[in-house]
Structure formats: C-alpha cells, structure tokens
C-alpha cells in the first residue's frame, strides 16, 4: 500500500524535534504530537475502510449471485455471511467513521484551529491511540478465532449475542464486545483532550464565537459521546458476564430483560449517529464558506442548533425499538421527538444552502464533496422521517428501506465527509497540492455508483425485502426476477465504486511523488491552520509566532477590503471597519 510510506516521511519530519525516545517505528508509535496521532488514526481508519469495503464486496456478491465462489474469498456460508455483515457495520462505524472524522480530524484540526501548540494532555492523547490500536487488533483477531467472528448484527441484541449455544461463536462474540469496549475507552480519552483543549488552550483573543464551526461540532460530538457511552459500557460489562460467566442480565428465564440491552444500546446508539454526523457537518461548512467566499449564514444559530440537536438526540432512542414490544404510548412520544429532531437538522441544511446563495462558487474537488454531502445526506434525513413515524415503521422496520436510509446518512458522513476533509486539508497535512482532475474523476466515480447501489435498495425495501437474509432464493416472494435484477445492479455498482477508489490512491501516490508544493494558504482561507507552514512544524508555529486572534473565521468578501478574505490573526487597521 502507498500510505504508510507517506506517514513515515511525516514521522521523519518529526524526528529532529522529538527527544530521546525509542527508535524507528517504535519512536513513531510513541509520538505525542497531535498531528502524528491524527495521521495514525487516519491511516488505521483508512485501512479498516478497506477491510470493511472488502466485506461488503463479499456479501454483496453472495446476494447478487447466491452460492457463487466469490473471487478472493470463496464460498460464503450462512454463518460467515452473518459475521461479514455484522463486522462490516461495526468496523465502518467504530473503526472508520469515528477514527477518521472525529479522532483524526479532531486531533489534527483542534490545536491548529484554536492556535495551540498541541493538545493539553499529549500523553493521554498518545494513550488514546494506543488503546485504539489494541482495539483494532482485537476486532481483527475476533474474525479469525475458532468458531469465526461474531455474527449477531452490529447492534448485538441478546439472547443471540449473549448465549453461545445460539450464536455458535463463543470466542468471537466476546472478543467483539471487548474490542468495541476498548475502542470506546480510546475515544473517551480523546474526547477529554478535545474538550479541554478548546476550553483552555485558545489563542489570545479567540472568543467562543471566533472558533471555527468544525471545532465546535467535534467538541459537541465528543460531549455527546461521553454522555451516552457510559450506559452502554455498563451494558457491555453485563453482556460479557452473560457470555462468559453465565449471569442472566439479559436472559428472561433468569429474570433478566433482553429489551434492557436494546435500551442501553440505543441510548448510546442514537446520539452516536450525531457523534459521527456533527464532525462531517462541520467539515462541510468550512469548505462551503471557503469556496463560496461567503460568511457563514447565522453562525450563532448554527452553534445553538447543534447544541439543541445534541440535547434532543438523547430522547429519540426508542424509535429503533418500535417493533420490540415497547408500550405504544411510549412509541408515540418517541415518534414526536424523532420528528422534532429532524427540524434542527433540516435547519442546518438550509443554513448551508443560504451560505451558498449568492456566493462566488469554485467547484473544485473538496467543494464537490461538500455539496454532495448536503445533497445525499438530505435524502438520508428525509427517509428517516418515514421511519420515525411509528405507524410507517411497523412496515419498514428491518427492511432494506432502513438499510438504505442509514447508508444515505452514514455514507455521506464516513466516506463523502472524509474525502471532503482529506482533499481540503491535504495541502496542509502533506504539503502538496492534489491533482484536481483525478480528484474529480474519483468524485464522480464514487458518487454515481453510490446512488446506483442504494436507490435499488430503497425500492427493494419498499417491496418488503428484509435485512440480514443470506439467500433470498429460499423465499419465493422475495425471489422475483426483478428483485434479483435490482440486487445485481446494486452489487455491480459497488464493484464500480470500489474500482474507482484506486484513482484516489493513485492520486495520493502521485501527489506525494510529483505534486506541486503547497503554499501556506492555498485556498485563501481565514482560520488559523492556514497561517503556518504546510505541513506545520512540531509545535505548529515557531514559538515567537504563535497566533493572536482578532476576528471570527468567516470574514470573506468583506466590503471595502481589497482581499476577499481576512485571516483571523491579521490585526485590524486602527479606526477602520
């Protein structure tokens, strides 16, 4: 693979500053620089994205051509199929969306954007990645242990997840829980750093409303994560005891309650969707303001909206359980809260459109990704409203409609948002300008097949196709010809999309090798990270050049100024506007 070579050079860049630590690769693993830790998170996340993508390829092949000998994998057994689906979901959410958007960009951007030389607790930060790294090994190991990987869906409902006489993966399912639990610990350590750094390490002059929105979003996401994950950790401990010691927390025969797990899981699970959504939303607004050359529409309203969304997100979780036998009166309440929460999210979409309105728009690769995010996420959000209405959800629950819904939310986040962020900050991170033409080819080669995968799945879902079924030819009413054609279309589009990712990696490789050097501020943007070298040195700025802030980050196209941007650190001429 190409990327490790890249991050090695970055590590070397660091070596002259690091003091006598361990040597070579170990030294790299032992770095406390937030930029190095960000890279570690990013490359681990990208590697896991390839793993998760490969899994999708295998089970989509099985669905389109049941019983086929999948090239690169072989025949897929029903148990393997379930393990692939389960771990695909787990990996994409916990080992791709979170590490890349939250951890990698959170680590990279927060100190640079608030004008700090590093996180406030660099060693805790390093520990965070090390725990994450161990969790990665655990989850990968869980796939190959005896009995195979856990196959009880990423939501891990008991009794299937709790009792190995049902799931047949005694080792795999316990390792799965341990891996996910460790991953949570890693992000808790990271979150403490993010929040404390924003609170305590801002550059002189940076007031609360001078902080770039993406930083706010990442910090609010971290707060949501920290408030919601405790109960799930409690649940995970109980689940591990059920699995290994034989307690009965979730076993009705022993007085336990399987629905308890669902509550603990979704109390975390729904805030979690905002944990991954908010950083992506933040990335997108940074890109949109830069390339529309406009001030963000209603900065303060955005911040308040995000906080309100965060609060509301704790009161919608039971919309995942409408069919689980919860009290219908409770279903009513959760229908209302769920419909309510789509209001602030819709508002954010309008803010983005209002920011674009009347701007002078540059359609380069990062901007395309950002716009695609808004467009596709909108579809995801709108379909969520159908699911949030308890009456409609009785029909839609556990069908491919749900699956398509959350892929229209998660794909924009984890993939589109990540590509937007990478293409936008690449010059800063690696000091080279990416090839825009290759970037656009990659963009269209990803976005068109993406829609071609999931639009058919919406249709199938409305036709009644259930999720988590290994071979639809066993079900006559789901084995219709046109159903199968849709499945083949989806799988074919997936293959095209996966193939186009090579363009991205080639672009990366080519840029590092031959790309033009990036100036400090290639996009003429305002926030502080653009005021230092590309890539920034150890400590981010020279000690005597630490930035000082005079205004908010979105002063684009200010009247009466020659430049259409106004960096945050540039003193205002006395007496002028």
């Amino acid at each position, binding site marked *: 693979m190409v990327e490790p070579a890249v991050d090695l050079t970055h590590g070397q860049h660091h070596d002259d500053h690091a003091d006598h630590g361990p040597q070579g690769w170990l030294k790299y693993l032992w770095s406390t620089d937030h930029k190095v830790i960000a890279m570690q998170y990013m490359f681990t996340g990208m590697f896991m994205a390839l793993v998760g993508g490969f899994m999708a390829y295998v089970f989509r092949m099985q669905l389109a051509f049941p019983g086929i000998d999948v090239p690169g994998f072989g025949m897929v057994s029903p148990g393997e199929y379930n393990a692939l689906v389960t771990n695909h979901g787990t990996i994409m959410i916990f080992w791709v969306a979170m590490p890349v958007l939250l951890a990698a960009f959170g680590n990279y951007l927060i100190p640079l954007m608030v004008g700090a030389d590093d996180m406030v*607790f660099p060693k805790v930060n390093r520990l965070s990645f090390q725990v994450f790294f161990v969790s990665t090994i655990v989850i990968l190991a869980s796939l190959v242990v005896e009995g195979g990987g856990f196959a009880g869906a990423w939501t891990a409902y008991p009794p299937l997840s709790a009792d190995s006489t049902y799931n047949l993966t005694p080792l795999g399912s316990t390792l799965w829980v341990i891996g996910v639990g460790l991953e949570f610990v890693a992000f808790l350590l990271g979150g403490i750093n993010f929040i*404390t750094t924003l609170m305590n390490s801002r550059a002189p002059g940076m007031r609360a409303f001078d902080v770039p929105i993406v930083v706010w979003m990442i910090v609010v996401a971290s707060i949501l994560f920290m408030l919601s994950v405790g109960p799930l*950790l*409690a649940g995970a401990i109980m689940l591990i005891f059920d699995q290994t010691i*034989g307690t009965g927390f979730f076993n009705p025969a*022993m*007085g336990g309650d399987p629905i308890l797990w669902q509550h*603990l899981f979704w109390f975390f699970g729904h805030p979690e969707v905002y944990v991954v959504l908010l950083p992506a939303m933040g990335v997108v607004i940074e890109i949109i303001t830069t390339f529309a050359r406009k001030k963000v529409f209603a900065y303060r309203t955005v911040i308040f909206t995000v906080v309100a969304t965060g609060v509301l997100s704790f009161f919608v979780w039971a919309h995942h359980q409408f069919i689980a036998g919860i009290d219908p009166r409770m279903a009513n309440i959760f229908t209302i809260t769920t419909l309510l929460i789509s209001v602030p999210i819709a508002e954010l979409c309008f803010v983005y459109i209002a920011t674009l309105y009347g701007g002078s728009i540059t359609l380069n690769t990062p901007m395309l990704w950002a716009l695609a995010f808004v467009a596709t996420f909108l579809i995801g959000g709108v379909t969520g409203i159908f699911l949030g209405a308890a009456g409609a959800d009785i029909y839609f629950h556990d069908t491919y409609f749900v699956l398509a819904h959350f892929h229209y939310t998660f794909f924009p986040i984890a993939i589109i948002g990540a590509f937007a962020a990478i293409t936008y900050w690449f010059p800063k991170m690696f000091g080279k300008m990416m090839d825009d033409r290759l970037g656009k080819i990659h963009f269209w080669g990803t976005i068109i097949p993406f829609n071609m995968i999931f639009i058919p799945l919406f249709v199938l879902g409305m036709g009644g196709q259930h999720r988590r079924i290994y071979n639809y030819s066993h079900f006559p009413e789901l084995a219709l010809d046109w159903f199968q054609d849709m499945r083949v279309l989806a799988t074919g589009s997936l293959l095209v999309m996966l193939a186009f990712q090579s363009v991205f990696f080639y672009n990366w490789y080519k840029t590092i090798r031959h790309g033009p050097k990036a100036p400090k501020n290639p996009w003429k943007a305002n926030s502080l990270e653009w005021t230092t070298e590309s890539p920034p040195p150890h400590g981010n700025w020279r000690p005597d050049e630490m930035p000082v802030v005079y205004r908010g980050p979105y002063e684009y196209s200010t009247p009466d100024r020659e430049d259409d941007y106004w960096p945050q650190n540039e003193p205002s001429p006395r007496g002028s506007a």
Partner: protein
Amino acid sequence: MTAGARIIPFRPRPRRPEKMMSNGVLGMLLAVFVEVMLFAGFISGFLIVKARAVGSVWPPPDQPRLPFERTAVNTSFLIVSGIVLLIAHRAYQRGNKSVGPALLVATVLGAAFVAMQGVEWVALLREGLTLTSSLYGSLFYTIIGAHAVHAVIAIGLLGWAWLRLQSGRLPREHLSVVALFWYFVVLIWPFLYFQVYL
C-alpha cells in the same frame, strides 16, 4: 459604507484569557461525568430487573440478605474520609503544606472501607450469594464491584499523592485532580447503597 455591509468592531491586541478551570480539573470532571453515566446505566438495569421481579418480591426470598446495618458503618468510614480529604484539600489550596497526616487519614479510612467490604463479600459468598446464584447476586457484585474497582484506583491515587507530598513535589492541581476522583467515589456510594442494599 454600502448597505448591508458588516461592521467588524476594532479589537486591540488581545491577551491570553483567564482559564475558568485548570486543565487537570476539567479533564477529571469530564471523566467523572462518564463514570456517573456508567453507574446510571447499571442502576437503570438494576431498577428494571427489580421492577420485573416475580410477584414484585424484592429481594428474592431465597437469597441471603445484604448486611444493611453493618454496611452503614462502612459507609460512615467512607464519608468521614471524604470530609477529611475535603478539609485537607482546601487547606492545601490556601497554601498550607502540612496536610500530610490528614491526607493519610483519608487514605487509610478509604482503604478500611474497601477492606471491610471485602470481608463482607467473603461472608456473603459463604452464605451462598454469588455472581451466578441469582440476578440479585449478579447485580450486587457487578455494581458494588464496579464501585470497589473505582475505590481501589482512587486509593492508589491518594497514596501516590501522599508520597509526592512527603517529597514536596505535589502541585496543587494534582491534589485537586485526585481529590475530585475520590469525591466522586464517596458521593456516588450513598446512592448505590440505598438502591442496592435496601
């Protein structure tokens, strides 16, 4: 100036703002929030199981009773330890360096709490209350055990702080961080005690 133009007020060269809270204290507060939610998760599980108990009889009739009165003695040890630490902590903040004995008392009282809990666990295990004897036992050992793990970690930290203090290398902030964690362990205990033991 054209209509609709935005006026950005002039700002003089800014200075570094005052911190609301030191880094360590803020970080520890955040960690404590997570811990509170962890215990909230356990307690909600406990309440649901309790609400579902057969015939609404709780605790289950065939299980040993928890020593409510004897644990009240333990509890008082813990509370006193917390108060002693609070006094020492505040004195140290005001610059009083001779808080070593008080810190030691708080630590020892905390350790006594854990030790007495341990003795009680042994007795309960003998009486037949185990992690798998019933959900009652599972919940008891999981919740109270989670608290005990936190207590042991906190006592270790207190001991460490005491050692640093002896050698005169304990920044005020560090004592605050450690003390904060101990306050959490102390304050959450009455909630667990009244929920689980009653």
